[in-house]
């Protein structure tokens, strides 16, 4: 039946999104191609039928408007073709909607990843995304960075990082252990500290959420 494959795509993406909350599922290259092929097939058939109807109907009555052609087709006995064209057109629209829904859900998740995982995505997620999606992600990062930088720029305030301060603060310092070698790091008070692997620090809360997202540090709860 028409539209089955695209419906499957949508169901799949729905299931995968709920199953894996913080990642991008694999891009179903085949599925999308199959749907597009189906659409092309439908369109070609429609084109043929449309022309046939046009031939059956008086040449002058053929207009761009499908409905008018349909109406005139009933009078000329091209009902079968007309119904077919209508059906296929609806199926085409449906396929388009499903495909758009599929891509758009993925896109939403990709945008969310910027907020969950930071501006550099891990390998696993990158492998699951297409070229264009990766490009979109980079551009989204840029757009977001520009926006954050521009906040309050009139009043001589150099931008606000919206990815920090995700939760109401309990204290202005944070006690953490370094998981990965990071190198030099400059907290608010300006004095540089070197974050070496497996060291424990108690420093002002500056950029700590970005570091947690990157997996560099781990908060110690004691």
């Amino acid at each position, binding site marked *: 039946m028409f539209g089955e494959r695209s419906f499957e795509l949508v169901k799949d993406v729905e299931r995968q999104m709920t199953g894996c909350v913080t990642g991008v599922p694999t891009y179903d290259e085949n599925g999308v191609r199959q749907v597009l092929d189906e659409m092309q097939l439908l369109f070609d058939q429609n084109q043929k039928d449309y022309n046939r109807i046009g031939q059956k109907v008086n040449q002058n009555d053929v207009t761009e408007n499908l409905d008018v052609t349909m109406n005139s087709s009933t009078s000329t006995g091209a009902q079968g073709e007309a119904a077919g064209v209508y059906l296929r057109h609806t199926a085409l629209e449906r396929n388009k909607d499903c495909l758009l829904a599929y891509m758009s859900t993925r896109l939403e998740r990709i945008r969310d990843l910027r907020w969950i995982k930071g501006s550099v995505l891990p390998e696993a997620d990158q492998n699951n995304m297409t070229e264009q999606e990766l490009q979109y992600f980079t551009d989204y990062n840029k757009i977001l960075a520009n926006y954050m930088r521009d906040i309050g720029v009139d009043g001589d305030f150099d931008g606000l990082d919206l990815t920090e301060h995700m939760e109401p603060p309990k204290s*202005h*310092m944070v*006690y953490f*252990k370094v998981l990965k070698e990071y190198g030099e790091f400059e*907290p608010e*008070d300006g*004095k*540089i*500290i*070197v974050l*070496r*692997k*497996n*060291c*424990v*620090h*108690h*420093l*002002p809360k500056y950029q700590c959420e970005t570091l947690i997202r990157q997996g560099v540090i781990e908060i*110690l709860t*004691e």
Partner: protein
Amino acid sequence: MLVKHLRKDFYELLFGKRVLIIANFDIDSVCTVKILTELLKIDGISFSLCPVDGITAMKQAYSDYRETVSVFVLINCGIALDIRAFFDNLKNKLVFVLDYHRPVHVNNFYDETNQIRILSLDDNFDEGLDSDDDGDDDDESEIMDMGDSEDEDGSRRRGRKRKRRNEHDRERRRAVWKEKRNELLFEYTQFCYYAPPSSLVALELSWAISRGDIQYVWWTTVALTDALLLEKLPRSEYVQKSTELSLHIAREASTTETPRDCLKVNFEKDLCFLLYRHWNLYDSIKMTPHSACMLKSWSLKGEGRFHEMLGELGLPQVECHRKYASMDVRCRKKVERAFSEPVLRDKYNFNDVTVGTFISEIGFRPAFSAFDSHLACLALLENPVLNGSGNVVDNFLDSLAALSKKQFDTLDRGIGMAKTHLTAMYNQVKEFLSMNVVTPRGGFLYVQMPEGSPNVCYFRNTSFLVFLAQFTQRAAVSHVRNRRWSTLPLVLCAPHLSGYWVIVGIKPLSLELPKNLFGKLFETLAIKMTDGAVLMDFLDPHIVLVHGDHKDKFIQLLEACMV
């Protein structure tokens, strides 16, 4: 320089600065670090924490943070080293040393630039050093006076002759003074011993800045228990410090009814069997060094007597093998009274089984004695699974976590590991005695752990190694019943990592004061050996690493020294 006022001359200097805490790998440092970091966290002082397990690690930590940190706090490390020479480029930096190792290095005490400051609660710090100081000053001033009087002398010829004579005199006097100084220093540094735990200083600090809390007192009791168990302090001093801590407890405990989930600490008389509350009574009595040596429970005959004794006390074997918490209530009540029966003393020579210790209660959890907490933290600290560099930190953090009020699963895990450790230690001692490996060589008893032994992994770090050595010594002395053996010190040799062997020397059993001469001895012997054969990496001088090839030569030299 000695810091007299903890708040003004130490704590207030930490505000606004970046602090690095370098801590040694033992329970007292864990407790001190816990107290200190809690205080620093409340006050919002930025700090970094670096646990180290040896002198090389300490140097590495220093060079990593040299540029970025301006205040260093050394906990239980560094006081016996010449810090100025050891840490290069100390410009504009402050170093606070809170160390319970003694003796103190002279240069640290008499630091002219005031950059190296020692924190201690002792009023009369070290008489040895003081008298050295006097000698120093007097002679120096004498020399200066002589120099002055020279200048005032007018006549040239007379001056020159007197000058030459005075110079001679001066030279001679200087030589005499130097000799006297060296003698004093030698006497002072000959024996290494321990001062009361550094946690006491940290507790005083918390009191001085009026942020005292019952939790800090509890952590200090754990450190004090460490000093008792590993014989770092004589029993009398332990009792004295316990009384001091009881005063602290009385001060901190509020007069009104405390809610159930607050920590309550009491000083009570308790049975000395390690971990008996979390284990079964039978195993606990069998494996505690003190009771094991009295019963000689490693031998069949000893075990038989042990069963007999339990029978006489009216404690059925089934109950004793059951977990203590699931023992029959009547039996448990009997236990508390049973061990003070006179029949034990007369027939089985089993006495002195109670010790004054601190018991803590929180919420509806079973009571924890300071010994239990201490062993749990120690087992987590010296966890053999995560051995290797970089995991020093994880073990240290685990140990720190076990101390905190809310992390019960870490504490339970620690208790489990402590049981494994104690069992391994007991089995090792049993093996030593059954194979008669403890032999007197010259002036000391020598024990070597065979290389393929399955328990080797438990004894790679200092505390359990020393504990094993002490247990072995006690067991050997009671096993052989040779009175001379109790006057001999013991040297234990165990395989370590990468081809090295770790050698630890402890004082004779009959000696009351815990003065250990092996530190100086190992140092002098190390100079005689080839380079790289002996590594004095540990911060306790009576523990060294010797390369496998040179081990026998080292022992022979030691033997020759100690006749």
